[in-house]
């Protein structure tokens, strides 16, 4: 359980600093189980900040989304910091961005929250469909306590926990300035069990599976826009000359897009699961990301988003990297 008062105090303290532009956190959403990112520009705004197991969004995407209009003559760039409320996985995204020099450490003030797992919005919506008001969700004794209109439901954690949390090895932020509550250690281990059945299938069956998934993609690129690590100024799919991937929506282009999106996150994806969460067509995108994560762990013993001083995976090498596939 996160002490919300402590969180709000930390936000207030941060936003009161002269060198902080705003703090991003969570607030209650407009309906049902929704939670919304929120921005504090003044200490007063901090009062709406919350943290509950519904806070699934990765807010590390916001520093990279900053609109930076061209400066007028004599205008100084705004170098104030951005405050962020982060969970374990979100903090790894920031570490990874810092490692790639997308951000500088001093650009952000990180308010870390030791996270004991968040709820998958799709699962909870399926469990409690329909209209509702006065929703409150808490975690107590390894159970989610969900109050709807005064009625209390106690549900075991496993049932609603987001997939990414089931094997989370870094529940506490790996990088922070202020920590709310105590450090926690994870007892879980990522064993990549969920992709194993698919890995074992024959090539034909694998393609059958992915063909059906990719066919459904509507190429809205929400997966890219919600990803904290997809921050290229110009994405390869938006290029017109050369236009590697056509704008037409068909199996060929959809496959190319989904493969390349996954590849561009090789050694960078920190497994926050935002791509899969925001996908309007429910594509199992994390199955692609996890596969790459597993491969690079096996081949290069590398984990992304842990050490900001390390070099990015695909920008370095060891002379004895595996090469049995080379003729």
């Amino acid at each position: 359980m996160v002490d919300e008062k402590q969180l709000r105090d930390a936000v207030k303290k941060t936003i009161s600093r002269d060198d902080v532009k705003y703090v991003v956190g969570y607030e209650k959403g407009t309906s049902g189980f929704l939670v919304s990112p929120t921005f504090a520009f003044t200490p007063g705004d901090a009062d709406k900040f919350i943290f509950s197991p519904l806070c699934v969004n990765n807010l590390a995407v916001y520093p990279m989304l900053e609109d930076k209009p061209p400066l007028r003559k004599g205008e100084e760039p705004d170098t104030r910091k951005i405050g962020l409320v982060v969970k374990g996985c979100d903090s790894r995204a920031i570490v990874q961005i810092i490692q790639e020099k997308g951000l500088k450490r001093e650009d952000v003030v990180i308010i870390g929250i030791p996270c004991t797992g968040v709820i998958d919005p799709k699962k909870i919506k399926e469990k409690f469909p329909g209209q509702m008001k006065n929703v409150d969700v808490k975690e107590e004794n390894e159970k989610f306590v969900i109050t709807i209109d005064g009625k209390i439901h106690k549900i075991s954690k496993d049932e609603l926990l987001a997939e990414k949390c089931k094997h989370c090895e870094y529940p506490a932020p790996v990088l922070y300035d202020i920590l709310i509550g105590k450090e926690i250690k994870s007892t879980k281990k990522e064993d990549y069990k969920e992709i194993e059945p698919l890995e074992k299938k024959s090539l034909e069956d694998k393609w059958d599976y992915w063909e059906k998934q990719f066919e459904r993609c509507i190429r809205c690129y929400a997966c890219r826009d919600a990803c904290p690590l997809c921050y290229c100024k110009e994405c390869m799919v938006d290029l017109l000359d050369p236009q590697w991937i056509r704008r037409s929506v068909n199996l060929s282009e959809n496959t190319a897009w989904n493969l390349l999106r996954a590849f561009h996150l090789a050694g960078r994806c920190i497994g926050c699961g935002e791509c899969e969460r925001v996908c309007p067509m429910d594509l199992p995108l994390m199955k692609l990301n996890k596969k790459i994560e597993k491969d690079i762990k096996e081949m290069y013993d590398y984990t992304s988003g842990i050490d900001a001083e390390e070099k990015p995976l695909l920008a370095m090498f060891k002379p004895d990297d595996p090469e049995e596939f080379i003729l």
Partner: protein
Amino acid sequence: MKEKFEPNIIGFLCNWCSYAGADLAGTSRIQYPPNLKAIRVMCSGRVNPIFVINALQQGADGVLIGGCHPGDCHYERGNYLARRRMAVLKKLLEYTGIDPRRVRMTWVSASEGKKFAEVVKEVTEDIRELGPMQHFRRENKW
């Protein structure tokens, strides 16, 4: 009668080693299958995975990437970086159901004309066996 399938293979060959190796194979009059269409790149490290995926989309049945032997790269480290990239890409392709033999990588130096011919032979035969690439070919059906 059914025509024998002739695979289309795109070769991204590095300027300093593999391309020169291919040249040597030619000038030494070593016979090798004509299925490989060579594209010269300055370094195997120049080969973006997007090239490979795009080639497979546009009609290639296989892709061969040729670079210098480890340690011989003209740019010191290009082939090492390519090696990591292609290792990840090949596993990803296999995971989505595309035979990893369609994307191959080789080290051929400028003096290895014979090795180049052998590699092309092997790749061509492999892909002939696999048949045409049908997974996500661009259809151009307007």
